[in-house]
C-alpha cells in the first residue's frame, strides 16, 4: 500500500479537509489503490520526453495593464457567507 494513515492525515491537512480518525484507514486504502494503479506509468521510458505545458500551441496573449472593471464591491461580496461594510469577514487571524 503506497499511502498509510499518517500520510492521509498529512495530505488532508495540506488540502484543508478535516477527516476523522475512522475515515483514515478506508481513505488510505482507496487512495493507495488508485496510486498503485497509476504506477504502471513507470513502464514508459520518458527520460528524453518534454512534459506537456500547453495542449494547443499558442502564444501567451498580452494586454494593457489597465483597470477594466471597478467598483464591484457589492457584486463581489454578494455571495459571501459573512461580510461587513463591503469586506469579507473571517475568524481572527492575528493574535
Amino acid at each position: 500500500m503506497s499511502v498509510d494513515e499518517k500520510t492521509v492525515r498529512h495530505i488532508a491537512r495540506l488540502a484543508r479537509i478535516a477527516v476523522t480518525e475512522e475515515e483514515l484507514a478506508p481513505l488510505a486504502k482507496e487512495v493507495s489503490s488508485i496510486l498503485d494503479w497509476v504506477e504502471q506509468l513507470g513502464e514508459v521510458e520518458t527520460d528524453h520526453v518534454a512534459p506537456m505545458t500547453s495542449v494547443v500551441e499558442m502564444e501567451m496573449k498580452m494586454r494593457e495593464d489597465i483597470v477594466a472593471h471597478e467598483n464591484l464591491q457589492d457584486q463581489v461580496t454578494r455571495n459571501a457567507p459573512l461580510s461587513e461594510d463591503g469586506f469579507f469577514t473571517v475568524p481572527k487571524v492575528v493574535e
Partner: protein
Amino acid sequence: MTDLTKLTIADARKGLAAGEFTAVELTQAHVNAAEAASKLNSYVTLTPEKALAMAKHSDEKLSNGTAGPLEGIPLGIKDLFCTEGVRTTACSNILDDFTPTYESTVTAQLWRDGAVMIGKLNNDEFAMGSSNETSRFGPVINPWKASGDEADLVPGGSSGGSSAAVAAHLALGATATDTGGSIRQPAAFTGTVGLKPTYGRCSRWGIVAFASSLDQAGPITRSVRDAAIMLGSMAGHDVKDTTSVDIAVPDYEAALTGDIRGLKVGIPKEYRVDGMPAEIEKLWTDGIDWLKSAGAEIVDVSLPHTKYALPAYYIVAPAEASSNLARYDGVRYGLRVPGKDITDMYEKTRAAGFGDEVRRRILIGTYVLSAGYYDAYYIKAQKIRTLIAQDFAEAYKKVDVLLTPTAPSPAFAVGAKTDDPLSMYLNDVFTVPVNLAGLPGISLPAGLSAEGLPLGLQLIGRTFDEETLLRAAGVLEEAAGFTAEPSTWWRA
C-alpha cells in the same frame, strides 16, 4: 399541433421562421415536459418564468426581422455554467446557493443568439464522475431502460442531466462540459449526439473549473446538424479566457456536405481492448463499413500509448482539481462551517461541502503535487501526455479522422459501480486520450445493444478541424439511421 418537443433545433428554427408556431409555444411545450419529468432528476433548477420572458422577446425579434441564429430555441444549461441571477452549484454542497452576478461567456453567446433557458441541469459534483451519481441533488435517471427490465440506469456523466434531458425531449439541446469524456460518454449512454470541441475553441470563462488544461464546453443534441448549430454560437475567442483561441468561427453547418469521398479514416488498433463486448466490436465494424461505402478510405493506425492515458489522466486531472478547488474556503461564497480558528473553519467547511469522490480526487491531487512526489507523478504524467499527443500527430499524418467506440459498455444500473472508483474510471478509456491531446471528438448513436440500449461511436478530429469531424459525423449519422426512442415511463 404536432408535439413541439419532437423537433430538432434545425426543424424548430424553420417552423419559427415560417410562423408555424411561436417561441412561447415551443418554450411552453418544453417547460411542461420538464415539469412532468421529475422522476429523471435531470433539472436541478427550472426557470419557467425566465424561459417564457425570453421566448416572448424572441417572438418579437422573429416578427421584426432581427432574429438570431438560435432565436427562440429552448435549451438546458449544465449547472457548471454561471448564469446571472440563477443559482449555480456545480451540484456541490460547497457552493450552497451561490447565485452568480455574471454570465459565463458560452451562455452569454447563446442568449445573444436568441436561445431560451429552460433551467439548470444536474451533473456529477464538480463534473467528477461518469454516471451522474455524485451530485448533491442525487442521481439522474437515464430515460432508457433495458428491455424487460425496470431497473434504473445511469445516463452517463458528468453531463448526465444534459444527456437525459435531451434524450427525454425536455430541451432541444443542452450545454455540457467534457474533461475526460463528460460530453461524449453520456451522449453514448442516452442515444444523443455529444460534441467536445478542440481545447480553446470555446471560452471557459464563467464555467466552474475542474481541470483547466482539459475542460472544454460543447453541446449535447439530437442530431449532428444541431450540434453544428449550437457550436457555432458557443465557440469563439474571449479576452477573458487566455486559452481561448483567436481564430474565426467557421460556418459549421456548411461543413455538412454529406460527401466524404476520399476521406481517410483511421482505426486505432489499441482501442480493441480485452473484454470489449462483441456488440460493441460489431458496432465498430458497422461504422467502418458505413464510412467505406460512403467513399472513405479506411487506414489501420497505431496509438501505442493509449493504455497509459487513463492513469496519466488520474494524475493530471486530480492535481489540477486540487488547485482549482482550493478557492472553496468558506470566505467568498458558498458554504461556511464555523471553526475555532480560520484553519479549523476551512477544514470543517471543506469536509462538509465536498462529497466523497471530490474529496478523494483532491487528496490524490494534493499528494501528487506535494514535495517529493511532484516529479514522480505530475511531471511523469505530463510527459506521458506529450507521448499521447505525439501518437495522434503521427496518425494524423496518414488520416483525417479516427473512428472508435465511445464507451466500453452501454448504460449500467444505478449503484452498480459506485463502490469501485477504478471500474468507474474505466468508462472513460476511449474518451480520455482525446482530452489529454486537446483534440475535438464527437459521439453519435449508431445502434442498440442486445438489451435495447443505445451504443455510441466516436469520431476524433484534428486540432481545430471540427468541420471535417462534423462532415464525417453527418455521413455516419445518415448511414446508422438511428431513430429509436425511449418509452416515456417517467411522465407524471
